[in-house]
């Protein structure tokens, strides 16, 4: 299975994961500061900022884009409960 690396900048930790893994499946296991609320693309609690590899995450759905907009997310912010890792990427809590 192809692998990709995700780096959590807040704790300076890189993890190798199978392509397609959601960020939520990794961040809590390594103690990153990304925090979660509903875990299902509704509340916006898990907004994270993508420092590098913006194009190496799955495309946001219409619903995710709406949640990001409603929560006044900045450019290059995503929801950690939705974004799937498809290439090397560096993220941190927004």
């Amino acid at each position, binding site marked *: 299975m192809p692998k990709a690396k995700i780096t959590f900048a807040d*704790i*300076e*930790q*890189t*993890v190798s994961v199978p392509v397609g893994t959601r960020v939520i499946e990794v961040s809590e296991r390594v103690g990153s500061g990304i925090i979660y609320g509903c875990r299902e693309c509704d509340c916006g609690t898990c907004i994270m900022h993508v420092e590098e590899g913006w194009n190496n995450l799955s495309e946001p759905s219409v619903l995710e884009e709406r949640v990001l907009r409603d929560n*006044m997310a900045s450019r290059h912010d995503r929801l950690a409960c939705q974004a799937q890792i498809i290439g090397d990427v560096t993220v*941190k809590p927004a």
Partner: protein
Amino acid sequence: MKPHPNVADARGAVEFAPQVYWIGAMDPTLRTFDIILRTANGTSYNAYLVRGSDGVAIIDTVKENFSDEFFRRLESVADYSEIRVIVLNHLEPDHSGALPELMTRAPQAQLYISQRATSMLKGLLKPRGEAFSYRTVGTGDTVSIGDRTMRFLHTPFLHWPDTQCTYLVEEQILFSGDVFGCHFCDSRLFNDKAGDFRFSFDYYYAHIMRPFKQHVLNALDLIEPLPLQIIAPTHGPILRDRPERYVAHYRELSTSSLAGEISAHEKSLIIFYMSSYGNTARMAEAIYAGVEEIEGVRVSLYDLEGGEVEPFVDLIEEADALLFGSPTINGDAVKPVWDLLSSLAVVNLKGKLGAAFGSYGWTGEAVRMIEDRMRGLKMRVPVSGLRVKLIPSEEELQDCHAFGRDIAAILTGRRDPRPVLDLADLA
């Protein structure tokens, strides 16, 4: 004849520059504002009217239940049909409360708000089920009403994402929104006539603007070059006597005081702890000694039992890293730790480095709970907390020492890169 206006008696607008009027409302009996702020003598909701050669502009409104006073003052100097421009510098309900009714009475008027105010406008108008057309503006945008020009300044997070200031070019008046405001109700209206409001001014800054100091400094960069005759905020006295000193005071309040105490390349790390039998204290001292070994970190050690929350909050605001030590008592961290961790809404903690430690007797939940709290406060917690069962052994004190060194190394960027983990190996 009174030497100055007393708006408690005056029912109409108060002109304070040629064709520029105060049309706000006084709320002298208010004692608590927005849950978090106390006020000993109420507040004012300042709104303004500017008349130009081609129409009238209204700048901000009032809290909804003060609408009658606002409209009465407005009607004393203008007809609704003359209003061409409505500016809202900030959409919090104490300034937007009369907006829907004003838009109904002056449907021809164009509403100007900041880009970030749009979603808030929708949220505020939701219960009424109506929508208003508006234009969004940013720094440098202008709107004129004939011989009067209003220039906008994008000043977000002072103290909401939507906030902006509006500068009346010809009269050099800054309509500053909540910036330079305070909860101080004085019917004499102007800073050279009102009572001593220094405490209220600083208290308001400390609770409203302080969490956004960098945004304040960014805004001051826009405001300081402006020639200023008058600052007209949305709460408290209108600042017409030497307004520039309030701008200077804001810069002073927003500038780091720690910067004068430690060198620019040093980081400040503070260890706070509570200890019931001296075990968590011994851990704290060992961590302190570990931090001390790393060059470029100025470490401070505080026993929470000997201090009070407010000065500790001041220290926390300027620190780069914060360590909290707590024993676990009945499955929880101890109250003084929570008291401190629940008093930090007035300071910006985002990105500060945090860590937790503590001795425990049975289960040791305190450390994880403190870590969760720090993450919730948007601190980064790069090292898993350190827990010791009851009395720390020499070996465990060495672990504490290494823990301190490790955190200080991360803080100064000296820690060796961590090995890449594989997801399959994580529990």
